[in-house]
């Protein structure tokens, strides 16, 4: 709502009754939300255990003893995911920023760079991650690299950084494009060079604007890290797969999912929060359902 107007007109009875109405509406909405949630939960809790083979499903997917047994191994394996995530993320950001800058270059002489950057993002985003992991993870070491430079962990991470930098570069590019042309004009008229304009005026605004979609890409990366296991390293999903086969029980996957959620939920909530904050800052109005 438009705060200024509201505050100024706050004492008038007509608007007070509007406020009252809005409050009632809000209360009603949350009541409906609570009741519908309860109904769905109750249905699940009451109905599912009455299904004929629930006992078998429970044993196969929610075996408490199996959870306890697998948990330490899975947490151990999850460290590898965290490590891959930790060293690919900075690489992705640096690479993506360079590509976005290349695509945004304006000098006519740099046309080949722009074209190359465009082809790079198209190809990286157009080809499935799995293929890049196989191609780079097995293909590059297959050219004759010796240990330790042929490590699947190294080249699997490179493949991830390559594909994700394609996505992230587009996010950066959108951010850069969203900065109004007048900002550049003002900066240039103040005597800043083209490079300085980008560095001190455009990029700081652009990056702040794209923080939510960047975090979104990170959430997605955090899951795709598991694909590195296709070329050998045992990370959490692979460990869950091994345990599943060993015990003929799918519970380890549930445990792995919970570990993933423990990381992704805070990350997505943070994204939501940042997005809302930005919405409030930029639009300042909200229409109720």
């Amino acid at each position, binding site marked *: 709502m438009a705060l200024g107007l509201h505050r100024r007109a706050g004492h008038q009875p007509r608007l007070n009754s509007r406020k009252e109405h809005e409050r009632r509406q809000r209360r009603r909405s949350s009541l409906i939300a609570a009741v519908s949630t309860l109904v769905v939960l109750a249905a699940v809790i009451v109905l599912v255990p009455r299904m004929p083979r629930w006992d078998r499903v429970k044993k196969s997917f929610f075996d408490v003893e199996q959870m306890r047994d697998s948990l330490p191994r899975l947490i151990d394996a999850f460290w590898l995911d965290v490590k891959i995530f930790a060293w690919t993320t900075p690489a992705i950001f640096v690479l993506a920023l360079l590509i976005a800058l290349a695509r945004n270059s304006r000098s006519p002489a740099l046309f080949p760079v722009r074209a190359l950057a465009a082809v790079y993002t198209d190809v990286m985003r157009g080809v499935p991650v799995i293929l890049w992991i196989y191609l780079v993870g097995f293909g590059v*070491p297959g050219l004759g690299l010796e240990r330790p430079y042929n490590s699947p962990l190294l080249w699997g991470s490179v493949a991830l950084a390559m594909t994700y930098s394609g996505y992230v570069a587009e996010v950066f590019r959108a951010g850069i494009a969203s900065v109004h042309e007048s900002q550049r004009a003002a900066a240039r008229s103040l005597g800043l060079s083209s490079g300085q304009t980008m560095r001190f005026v455009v990029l700081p605004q652009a990056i702040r604007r794209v923080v939510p979609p960047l975090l979104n890409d990170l959430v997605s990366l955090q899951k795709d890290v598991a694909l590195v296991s296709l070329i050998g390293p045992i990370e959490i999903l692979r460990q869950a797969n091994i345990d599943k086969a060993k015990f003929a029980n799918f519970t380890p996957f549930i445990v792995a999912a919970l570990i993933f959620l423990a990381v992704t939920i805070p990350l997505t909530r943070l994204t939501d929060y940042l997005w809302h904050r930005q919405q409030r800052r930029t639009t300042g109005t909200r229409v109720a359902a």
Partner: protein
Amino acid sequence: MKRSIRIRVLAASALALIGLAACGGDESSSECPTITEGKLTIGTGTPAYYPWVADDAPESKQGFEAAVAYAVAGELGYADADVVWVRTGFDEAIQPGAKNFDFNLQQFSITEERKANVTFSDPYYSTNQALVGYADSAIAGATSIANLKDAKFGAQAGTTSLDFITKVIQPSTEPFVYDDNAAAKAALEAKQIDAIVVDLPTAFYISAVEIEGSAVIGQFPLSDAVGADNFGLVFDLDNPLAACVNEVLASLKESGKLAEIENEWLSGYTGAPVISLD
């Protein structure tokens, strides 16, 4: 888990007492029920590999497991025409829902852990582990696992071979794990691993057909830590048909028929140098 095993043993012996005659030839008997009356539905891998199933066509009765399946079916009283094949992956065979097969055979190793979720028959084949690698690799010619400590190993996910690497060979670096032989082959070629560990007949098949230039570097004797790799037929948990099939397997062993089938399909797959466990 213990209790359920005891119950199963009780049930099995009770069935054995009551149902001996019934299991001999009367397939519609309630003691040996099948999912489709009058038919025996058997699951196998997708695809199924030689020498277990020849040409991915179990109906041909060619290949060790195909031949065993038809022998079991025959002893249970099913004509060849009454045998129906379905294809499942490993996961479909162990999922908790109703099964679309009476039993499934695709080199499932019998382990205590798995018994909590599926029922196994008695073993129809026992094998040991073997190493496949390039003949010019650093570990070719190894005679003892002491020579293998610094080598890098690969295994297929969810196999007993992986257990064998971590528990018996105990190499200095963690093994790598692959979904299939194609990935293991690529890793061998990229020199990311020195060898893969698989059961012996599979080792011979992979080295001869799937990975050109590779060889069976050696086979391992059985160990206490990881016993023989015993293959069993997989049934839905507590399926009473398992008891009937066990009797049939016992009689196939006694009559020498099982050994005959093994001889026909797997006899060429035993001659590899032995790598000692010291």
